[in-house]
């Protein structure tokens, strides 16, 4: 079987498009509604917590037992936002490396899909590390998922996002393992394209969360 035939070997569809790509876009559409509901919940409950800690406001007695600072850490979150944006760049370069494998200019490390997939996974893990640090420091400062409405809605929203990033990192590592084992070829570009769409979606959700949760008081 020639490679050209093999690459067009997906079953015939009424749209002429591969069902896997239609499925990932439909999944992303449904995820938009999931995250919109979580963001709505956060925004509705915002400012309605009876006890601290609060996201942007200092809490003093008698509302809080002791003095509590505003809890959101903007510098750390800004850094993790930058990391996630750069991971999206690494992901498009991984896809380009797979699509252009064997072409001039794609022999070196910067033309290697393995390098860019690994970079994306490392950046995703760094983002998760920042989130773990943030969650841990919040718990130390007295904010848990059961403390107040802010804690419940915040941990649910950002926890769901973190779970999506975790799934994305596992997906990337799976692709990396396949790439190491047999090498991802241009005919596998659709597999990488689908994972890239998921990864970029996780990125755009964070763009919304960063502004609505962290920056807007």
């Amino acid at each position, binding site marked *: 079987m020639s*490679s*050209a035939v093999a*690459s*067009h070997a*997906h079953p015939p569809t009424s*749209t*002429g*498009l*591969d069902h896997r*790509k*239609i499925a990932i*876009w*439909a999944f*992303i*559409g449904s995820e*938009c*509604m999931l*995250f*919109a*509901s979580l*963001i*709505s919940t956060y*925004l*509705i409950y*915002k*400012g309605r917590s009876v006890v601290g800690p609060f996201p942007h406001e200092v809490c003093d007695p008698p509302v809080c037992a002791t003095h509590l600072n505003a809890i959101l850490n*903007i510098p750390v979150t*800004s850094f993790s*936002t*930058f990391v996630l*944006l*750069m991971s*999206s*760049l690494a*992901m*498009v*370069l991984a896809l*380009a490396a797979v*699509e*252009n494998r064997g*072409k001039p*200019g*794609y022999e070196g490390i910067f*033309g290697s899909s393995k390098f860019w997939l690994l970079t994306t996974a490392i950046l995703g893990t760094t983002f998760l590390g920042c989130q773990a640090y943030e969650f841990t420091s919040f718990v130390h400062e007295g904010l848990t998922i059961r403390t107040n409405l802010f804690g419940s809605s915040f941990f649910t929203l950002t926890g769901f996002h973190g779970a999506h990033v975790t799934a994305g990192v596992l997906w990337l590592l799976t692709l990396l393992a396949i790439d190491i084992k047999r090498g991802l*070829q*241009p*005919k596998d*570009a*659709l597999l990488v394209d689908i994972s*890239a769409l998921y990864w*970029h*979606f996780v*990125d*755009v959700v964070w*763009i*919304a969360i*960063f*502004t609505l949760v962290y*920056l*807007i008081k």
Partner: protein
Amino acid sequence: MADHEFRHTNPDIDVHAMGEVHEHPTWKQYKWVALILTLITVVEVWIYYTPFKDSPLFVPVLLIMSAVKFAIVVLFYMHLKYDHKLFKALFTGPLIIAISTLTALLFLFGKFSGKH
């Protein structure tokens, strides 16, 4: 890496299955997109630490910058600008429903009344 153009001239790529009507952005475009996204993020964080955060324009400006970043990633990194119209419909349809629902809920719970 040189300024390669990521074009689907490779016969091994199932362009039809990927649903792409046009070509992908170039490496140079990807670099510019990353730079613009970084700059917008820097401006967002910078104005958070300035007196502008107390201005009534602070929230609208942040929302506009966030929407621009969102659109850039979707159009260029997710290739929706170049993709089949069915994919555009599958994404923008639910997105419009999601944003409409979010806005309606915020109105319903009085978030735009200034009481909360």
